[in-house]
């Protein structure tokens, strides 16, 4: 399964990767936003999940074909 599974990280791919890493995947859920050490967190029982609203800076976003 290796080899063909490493896409070239052009700009569009990078945006998709970062977006899916922080907005996709298994989501545990949360119900209360807290802030701890400058990071917004969602508190779920004893579970801590970085809030979906958190953003990371992205490189430039010009379109590529």
């Amino acid at each position, binding site marked *: 399964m290796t080899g063909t599974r490493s896409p070239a990280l052009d700009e569009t791919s990078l945006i998709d990767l970062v977006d899916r890493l922080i907005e996709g995947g298994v989501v545990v859920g949360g119900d209360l936003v807290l802030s701890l*050490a400058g990071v917004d967190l969602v508190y779920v029982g004893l*579970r801590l999940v970085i809030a979906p609203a958190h953003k990371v800076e992205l490189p430039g976003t010009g379109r590529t074909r």
Partner: protein
Amino acid sequence: MMMLYAVAAADADHAAATDDTSLQAHRYDDVTVFAEPLTDTPERSTREVLAFGRVLQQLWSHHPVLPVRFGTIVSDETELAQLVAERESAWTERLTAVAGRSEIIVHLPLPSDAAPDPEPDEPVESGAAYLRRRAAEVRRHDLETAELKAVLAPYASETAVLPQVRTGEARLSALVPDELVETARAAVEKWATNWSWATVTGPWPPFSFCQETEA
């Protein structure tokens, strides 16, 4: 506390998959959860997110996995065991659904909200003309999306419409067998020549298919 990376089958082993020696495999009856012990919450930086993604892709290159959203933290083993107990059955089903498959993401142009530049002697667009133009553009986009789904249908077991990340672009994600990724990409690119443009990224771990979606 520990940050979760991915859920895999019970017999999955990360030793050969990743050079991240801090990663631990927590084994349960039907699944293994890969996690990293933390003393501090992770930085909210692109660098940290991409480092997380790199480890995740290494794991995925060796095993079917369900990626866990970056920054998901449990306080201890007891918390993790509780989380697994609640979701093990659903995760096992999804692991079966994504095994041997990759996600590809197709970017498409969205209908423009702006009127085209008028010719010098052309009157300014009226409200009714604007609405007619917008309706036509939305119909065209709906047709385009339907056609794209039809193009992907022979390859994709599931599709998902993703949130917009760039102005003027829609995204459609598809879960396709590993061996058909390039065939599906070529089919989309061939189809796109009939429209304005389309861009395909991937193959990715099944980020958008950790919960059941439309077929």
